[in-house]
């Protein structure tokens, strides 16, 4: 059995196999795999006995359920008005330069993906970003370099 099939089976055991259990299962797969492959979506459809199109339709509706292979760390920069006013473009430029990727891309080593997202709810501490589920606020180019350095070293130690 593929590891992802087992993961899906475990998630279904944990949450249930009804339609209203679909979102927690999709989220569980994304948490482990960082994205939903076509294979994962088909497996979920089979496990929950749902049409694959329904699973695909639901999965692709939500911006945090990625269906493209993502890096180990997903960086999401808030692009809504206050963050935009307070210099989010400089933050993006800094990260693009540091990781040598553009917004929407993943580093070749598969460690970082850079995305923009809508309002994170930290407008009073703009600009803000998420790295996976961790929030970083009051960003400056300098601060962002320090934060990313920590993540890059973390990955070196683990890898």
């Amino acid at each position, binding site marked *: 059995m593929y590891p992802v099939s087992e993961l899906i089976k475990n998630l279904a055991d944990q949450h249930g196999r009804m339609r209203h*259990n679909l*979102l927690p299962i999709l989220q569980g797969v994304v948490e482990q795999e960082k994205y939903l492959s076509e294979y994962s979506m088909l497996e979920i459809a089979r496990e929950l006995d749902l049409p694959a199109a329904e699973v695909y339709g639901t999965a692709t509706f*939500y911006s945090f359920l990625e269906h493209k292979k993502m890096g180990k760390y997903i960086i999401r920069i808030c692009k809504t008005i206050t963050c935009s006013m307070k210099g989010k473009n400089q933050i993006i430029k800094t990260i693009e330069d540091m990781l040598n990727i553009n917004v929407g891309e993943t580093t070749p080593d598969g460690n970082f993906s850079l995305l923009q997202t*809508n309002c994170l709810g930290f407008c009073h501490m703009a600009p803000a970003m998420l790295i996976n589920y961790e929030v970083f606020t009051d960003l400056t180019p300098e601060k962002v370099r320090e934060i990313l350095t920590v993540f890059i070293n973390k990955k070196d130690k683990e890898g």
Partner: protein
Amino acid sequence: MAPTYQLKRLDFIFKNENDWKEILVGKINLPPQELINELISSELKGRGGAGFPTGLKWKLTSEEKEAVKYVICNADEGEPGTFKDREILSKVPLKVLTSMAICGYVIGSKEGYIYLRGEYFFLQHELNKAIEEFVAYCRKINFEFTIRIFMGSGAYICGEETALFESMEGKRGEPRNKPPFPSVSGYMGKPTVINNVETLAHTYTIFEYGAKRFYDLGVQYSRGSKLFSVSGDTPKPGIYELELGMSLVDFVDEFGDGDTKAVQVGGASGFLVPRKRFSETTIGFQGKLTGISLPTGGSMMLFNSSRSMYNVLDNYLEFFREESCGQCTPCRVGCQQLLNGIKAVKRGEKTAGYLEKLLRLAETMQFTAKCGLGQSVANSFSSIVENFREEMIY
């Protein structure tokens, strides 16, 4: 001349929550009708932005004859410029849980959910601990009520109550037609009370201090206090509890940087008020006989003269274009066309007169879109284009 400082700062919401056990026990031993009357007489209106009377919502749901009902706390706080609900859930979660349980008692429901937006995943751990403590206490006093967190996954539209139900049912977050309203047919087709986080926190205040204390704050049609999320060009961004009915002039005196050009009241789906209108605008729900009264879910964004209102509108429209669920045509196509339209005018590909066409399109969306998202695009669009026409063109 001394500034006419009239903003009244209050401290109900974030005040300690240590008395939650007494309040819970005290209230679930009263007749439900008494609690409903208390809420109705406080005139508390929903704090998520739409402003439906909370007591009436509980009353209508309590009158439904169904064995299974639900209480849902809407924590899908996604409106640009709003960040108060996160603060409530991280500082005084037990107030929210207590109000949910009392609501369960009033309407006859044993199951509560908190729909937490995906962006606030980091709150989950602490919130679950509070829930465990709370549910354990309910069990101890033989009061049957469970609360679970349901995580969202990054979709603004899921803050719309019926889209939120769809999402919880494992579907795309596409709003339903209303009626039926949630009080009749909500989550899983069952009668459901769905309240914003802040509404539940105010409910706690009312149960703690009585309806009169709450009613005495604010002005007619807009009673009580409200949390405001202040951001943008201000020296003191943050969360403030203020009385409803304040004048925008006083607000800007307090929070502006001395160069405030406009204030966006109610986030991207709210209204932009230019400086010349500050004095005639108050913050509260519609219904006053004189002047303009603007409702807000709490989002107050200040812009100073260094900001281009074209960029602000462009940012909002891009937000709406991405967050529109795509279900109904007026909103799906309208958001795209408004954005393309202002870009074309700015580039000189369309004449300034094209803005009138766009205003008519926004008006059409207001009347024909299925839910509040599409209907409210016109609020910010019209108020920005009409007040800052030059900035849209040159």
